[in-house]
Each structure stands twice: as structure tokens, then as C-alpha cells.
């Protein structure tokens, strides 16, 4: 237990550092540390990884408030009210409000995780291959619905991920497809998840910043603190806002492929439309901070719900947790909780503990923590490259092929950024692709080739309704976003 707690502390602190350095994300933190867990059992590994996840999401608020640069994409809306407060000399107050909101958001989402995962698992147990196939299809259409005016590109990226995941040998008839004969020895089970993932999310980021010349100018914030000090009464009257934003975050976390930025933007706009004085939001009021930070930490519990009950990751960071489970030979999905009750309880305990550690590590020593934003990234990236190489190399007991995959994935991720193809959508498709194929073949074989099998079961109909609803929503939202862009362009 002591080891677990120490790993959680290590994870949280490292996560906060990654989160607080602009450009480095929670996903990167988890990816970089994953190789360390090869040596541990599942439970200690989870303490470390969940610590990194929670710390990474929380750390983003520090630079968002102090220098107006979100440390992670999910703290974009934290800058709206946090930075004006810091400029007024209320930086410490803003940080503390943000940290406390993060903590409450994390706890509320944890309660949702504990309540809903068993229910969803129980429902999913009744699923046959048909429903499992449809659920994955639903995951791919949800991606589209939430790609913010990039619907077609989002769906394209998702299916492209599916195609790439199919490279290799099909397990049913042991036949290769889409593999050059020279690479058959390496690609029997396709590209490994870990190199692809670290490449897409860590290496591509380094390429992008190299292109910008690694010129980081971070102006020192003057340490004046004569503004209002933090007191618990800052959160008075914010109860509804806190709960609403946390629930929005949790719900957005459940939907696959939706990042924290979407969650916090939605929560912020809701806080604004429900506010008694909406004109003050954006000028530095606690309300906006509370909405932003409680929703992005609400994401953490939410994203674990589909992961543990359906085997579908809610965001890119939980996608890495899937590979942590795979490494230990544990299948996440509807049977997970009943077959691994002990692990399930440990996950809940670990998330509770990590939230508490996050709070303690950030709230009191915030003056020290806030110095992290000055760590020069150009000194960290070389070391991160080295650790990524170790992680990729060890992904399948030491193959240089996987290190080449890492580099290729990094280049592909960099090019995706150039041609505006959403990486997370690609990743979700890549992770779910093989299951999608297996369930499709199973369902169609069982029905002797009739595609009508997909319309033959009542639970299937429900999922079809969800699929159609998400597509309709996607098309409408896509039009709305494009219209808005047009108006903005005209203005």
C-alpha cells in the first residue's frame, strides 16, 4: 500500500509538472511514464498512471492563470477569468479557487464513475456481436458529432484509424492484408498501440515546436499580491455551478474522443448563460474559473466509465490506460468489474487518493508549484525523446521496428496537424478497429451473410437511434459552426 501511495504521489507531481508546462499534456505524461509500469503489477501501475492523469489535467490551470497560456487544451477557458484576476494581483486567489474547483470536479466525477460503470457493464453483458459492433460504430459517429465544424474530417480520421489498425494478420483465418512481404515478421499483429500513441501525441508535438524554433518567451509575472486573498467564501453561491459544470465534464468525458477543451468550453458557456451577471464573466470572476476547472477535472472520472464498462476509451489519455491493461493481460469491457472486482475497487480508491494528493500538492505549496512554468522545454524534450524511445522499444520486448513506428507516427501526427485531421479521432478508430472487424465478421457469419442482422435486435435499435441522433446533431452543429465562422469572417 505504501508503494502505491508513493507511486500516486510521484504520478501526481510529475503530472502537475507536465500539465503546467505549456505544450506538454496529461496524455504525454501518461505516455512517457507507461514504460515504467512494465515492471509493476497492474494495481501499482494504475496508481501511477491515474496520478499522472489527474495531476496532468489539474496542472494546466497554473500557466492559464499566471501567463494566459493554457498548460493543457482543457484549461483554455481558465484563462478567460483566471488571467484578468492575476493581472489584478489576485493570482494566488485565482489559483486556489481553480484548485479547489478541480478537486470537487474530480470527486463528483468519481462518484459518477462508481455509480454508473456497474450499471453500464451489466447492460453491456447482454450485448451480442451485433450490439458490440454498433456501439463501436456509435463511438465513431460521436467523434464526428463533436469535431467542431470539422465533421467530415473527424469521421475520415476515425475510419482511417480503423484501416491502419487492420494492417497485419486477421486472427480468424491467419491471413495477412495490407502488409508488404518484407515486413511480415514485424506486422503479424499490426502496429503496436504504444509507439503509435506516443508518436502521435508526444513526438509530433516536438516536431511542431521545433518548427516554431523552440522560442519560448515567458514573461515573469510580477509577484504583487495586494489583491483580495482567497477565502472559502469565494465559492459561496457557486454550488449549482460546481455541480452543473462537473456533470457536464463527466458527461463529455463519457463520449469517446471528446477532449477536455470541449467539456470546459461547454461548461463555461453554460455558466455564462445561467449567470445573474453574465457580463462579468471574462473579466475575472470566480464563477468562470469554477466552471472551467471543475468541468475539466470532471472529465477524468467520466472518461473511465466507457473504458471500464465497454472497453472504449473516453479520451486520448484513457486510451493509453487501455494499453496498460493490455500489457497486464487484462481485457477491459463488460466483464471487467465482475472478473476483477478487487482491481475495480483499487481504481476507485486510487482516483480518490490521487484527487486528494493533487489537492494537497497544489493548494498549499502553490507558490512553489507556480515556478514550474519557467522550466525550459528545450531542455526537457531531448530527455522525453529518449524515454519515448525506451517505451516504444520495450512495447513488445525489445524491437527496433517499434521505434521506427514511433518516429513514423510522430511524422504522421505532425502532418495531420498540417492538413487539419484530428489526431484523437484517428486514435479512437485505431484502438477500436480490430474489435469493429471481429464483431462485424462474427455477426455476419452467424446470420449467414445477411446484413439485416444489424437491425434484428431491440437493443440494437436503441443504438441505431443514438447513431442517427449523433449524425443529425453533427450535421446541424457543423452547419451552425460554419455559419458562425462566416459571420466572424465577414465582421
Amino acid at each position, binding site marked *: 500500500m505504501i508503494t502505491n501511495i508513493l507511486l500516486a504521489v510521484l504520478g501526481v507531481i510529475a503530472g502537475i509538472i507536465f500539465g503546467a508546462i505549456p505544450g506538454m499534456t496529461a496524455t504525454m505524461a501518461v505516455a512517457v511514464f507507461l*514504460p*515504467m509500469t*512494465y*515492471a509493476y503489477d497492474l494495481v501499482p501501475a494504475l496508481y501511477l498512471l491515474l496520478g499522472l492523469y489527474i495531476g496532468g489535467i489539474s496542472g494546466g490551470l497554473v500557466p492559464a492563470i499566471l501567463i494566459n497560456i493554457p498548460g493543457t487544451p482543457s484549461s483554455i477557458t481558465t484563462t478567460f477569468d483566471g488571467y484578468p484576476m492575476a493581472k489584478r494581483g489576485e493570482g494566488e486567489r485565482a489559483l486556489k479557487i481553480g484548485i479547489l474547483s478541480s478537486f470537487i470536479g474530480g470527486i463528483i466525477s468519481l462518484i459518477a464513475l462508481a455509480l454508473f460503470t456497474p450499471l453500464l457493464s451489466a447492460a453491456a453483458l447482454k450485448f451480442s456481436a451485433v450490439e458490440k459492433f454498433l456501439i463501436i460504430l456509435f463511438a465513431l459517429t460521436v467523434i464526428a458529432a463533436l469535431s467542431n465544424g470539422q465533421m*467530415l*474530417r473527424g*469521421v*475520415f480520421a476515425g*475510419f482511417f484509424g*480503423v*484501416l491502419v489498425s*487492420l494492417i497485419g*494478420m*486477421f486472427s*480468424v*483465418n491467419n*491471413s*495477412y*492484408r*495490407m502488409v508488404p512481404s518484407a515486413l511480415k515478421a514485424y506486422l503479424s499483429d499490426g502496429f503496436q498501440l504504444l509507439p503509435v500513441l506516443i508518436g502521435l501525441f508526444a*513526438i509530433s508535438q*516536438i*516536431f511542431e515546436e*521545433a*518548427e*516554431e*524554433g*523552440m*522560442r519560448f518567451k515567458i514573461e515573469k509575472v510580477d509577484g504583487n499580491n495586494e489583491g483580495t486573498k482567497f477565502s472559502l467564501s469565494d465559492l459561496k453561491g457557486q454550488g449549482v455551478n460546481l455541480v452543473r459544470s462537473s456533470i457536464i465534464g463527466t458527461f463529455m468525458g463519457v463520449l469517446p474522443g471528446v477532449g477536455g477543451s470541449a467539456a470546459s468550453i461547454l461548461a463555461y458557456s453554460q455558466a455564462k448563460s445561467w449567470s445573474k451577471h453574465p457580463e462579468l464573466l471574462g473579466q475575472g470572476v470566480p464563477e468562470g474559473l469554477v466552471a472551467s476547472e471543475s468541468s475539466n477535472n470532471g472529465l477524468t472520472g467520466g472518461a473511465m466509465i466507457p473504458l471500464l464498462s465497454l472497453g472504449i476509451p473516453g479520451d486520448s489519455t484513457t486510451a493509453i490506460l487501455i494499453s496498460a491493461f493490455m500489457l497486464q493481460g487484462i481485457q477491459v469491457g463488460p466483464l471487467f468489474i465482475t472478473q476483477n472486482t478487487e482491481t475495480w475497487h483499487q481504481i476507485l480508491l486510487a482516483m480518490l487518493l490521487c484527487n486528494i494528493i493533487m489537492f494537497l500538492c497544489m493548494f498549499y505549496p502553490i507558490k512553489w508549484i507556480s515556478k514550474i512554468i519557467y522550466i*525550459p522545454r*528545450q*531542455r526537457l*524534450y*531531448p*530527455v522525453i*525523446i*529518449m*524515454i519515448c*524511445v*525506451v517505451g516504444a*522499444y*520495450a512495447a513488445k*520486448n*525489445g524491437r*527496433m521496428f517499434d*521505434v*521506427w513506428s514511433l*518516429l513514423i507516427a*510522430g*511524422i504522421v501526427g505532425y502532418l495531420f496537424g*498540417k*492538413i487539419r485531421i484530428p489526431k484523437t479521432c484517428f486514435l479512437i478508430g485505431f484502438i477500436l478497429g480490430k474489435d*469493429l472487424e471481429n464483431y*462485424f*465478421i462474427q455477426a*455476419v*457469419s452467424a446470420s449467414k*451473410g*445477411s*446484413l439485416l442482422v444489424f437491425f434484428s435486435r431491440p437493443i440494437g435499435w436503441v443504438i441505431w437511434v443514438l447513431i442517427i441522433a449523433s449524425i443529425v446533431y453533427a450535421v446541424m452543429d457543423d452547419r451552425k459552426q460554419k455559419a458562425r465562422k462566416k459571420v466572424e469572417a465577414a465582421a
Partner: protein
Amino acid sequence: MINVVYSTEHWIVPRIVICILCILLAAIIITEGRARVAKGEAFFSMPKKFFKDNPDFIKLFGTLVLFVGYIVTLDIIGFTLTSIIFVFLFNILYAGTSPKSIGISLLIAVVASLIVSIAFGVFFKITLPNGMFTITFVNQGFTIY
């Protein structure tokens, strides 16, 4: 109806996915082309600009070259020494060549590489790339890769 035949079933889903991708690609080209026409531009247009403003090609392509060099030499020299060399070179590439910076780069390269090598290779017993400078301490039961 889809005819599932054992010998060819590994191609069913890839073919469907490729078809979907072609349809989506066509849809993307058409909708974006029409949007350009609506704005009074040509249906096809060159992408505006591939690189960002004021791109640093030395750092960008330097990263690529060093990365390839790192991967190629890992298997020849062994993890620890290769990492010291390349973490140092990456540091020089990103942080410049002032005498003070070179000193810091060297320090980071040596310390970080040794820590990673010992932590992962010795304590966690993870296989690292080995080469001519890999030393195995048979009696003590560990390897410095």
C-alpha cells in the same frame, strides 16, 4: 448480403473501410471546393501555406535527422552511450551553442541517460537496445545497456 468465405474474409472489412474512406474523401473535396467557389475562389486551390510563419527548418529537419541517427546507432553502440551522445546533440540543436549552454547540455545528457539506463535497465529489468558498449555483469546479475 455479404458472402463470408473463410479464405477471403480477411479482406471484407478493409474493403468496406476503403470504400467509406473514398466516399468521405470525395465528400470533403466537394464540400470544401464548393465553399471556396462560394467565396469566389477556384474549386481547387493550393493549400495556403504548409509551414508556419518564420519556420525554423534547422530545428525541424535537425530533429528528424538526429532521430533517424539515434535509432540507427542504438543497435550498434548500445543504449547508454548512444543516448548520451544524442540527448547532448538534441540539446545543442534546441538550446544553442554558447559555452554555458554546452556545459548544461552535457550535464543533462550524461545525468539523464544514466538515470534512465539504470532505472529502466537495471531496476525495472526492461530490455534496452544493446550494442558494442553493452556490459553485462554476470556475477552481479545486471546489464548496463
